[in-house]
């Protein structure tokens, strides 16, 4: 299988996919974490 990072646009697409994955991670962490301004 070809490494997507060998292609510039493969790299950019991987970046967007990673952004979506990390967005859901952030949302999950925040829904179980300390509320804003909370202690």
């Amino acid at each position, binding site marked *: 299988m070809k490494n997507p990072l060998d292609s510039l646009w493969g*790299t*950019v697409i991987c*970046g967007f996919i*990673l*952004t979506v994955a990390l*967005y859901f991670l952030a949302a999950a962490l*925040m829904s179980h974490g300390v509320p*804003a301004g909370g202690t």
Partner: protein
Amino acid sequence: MNWGDAILRWGHFLAGIMWIGLLYYFNFVNVDAVKAATAAGEAAPIGKYVVPRALFYFRWAAVATWVFGAGLLSTLPGPNGGGGFLGAFLLQGSLVPIGIGAWLGTIMLLNVWGLIWPNQKRILGIVPASEEEKAKARRVAFLASRTNTMLSIPMLFFMATGFHHQDGIYNLFQH
């Protein structure tokens, strides 16, 4: 916002634009330019005159960006009464988004100083290396640079959405 915060934020932006701007120059322009110049037998001046200068500003802008960013995080209150720097890196409360951005930026800084620059020194002949070692260094530096380009996309998303609007980010990150 006080003057200290403003200067930290200004410095973070200036250095960050230089760092990521040069990263995009390397990936969007230089890789293909060197390929075309090599085919034409004209690549040597790029390696001799352009890349060392670009790498100098690239690696030191990376350090400056991180230092200004760490200073900015330290001005934030942490959710558990601790500092914002620790709270961000521990992914606590409302600091989760900027914490993810800070982790991505830190990984990128380590990539610059731990993989890209040591391998570029071999490629440019600053450190002696055989042709085989240079070929390997080229591949490692290329993949580390491409990894940073990939990481810059979520990093900039979390930097843009995670820092200023401490109340507003819940609209974005909570369903």
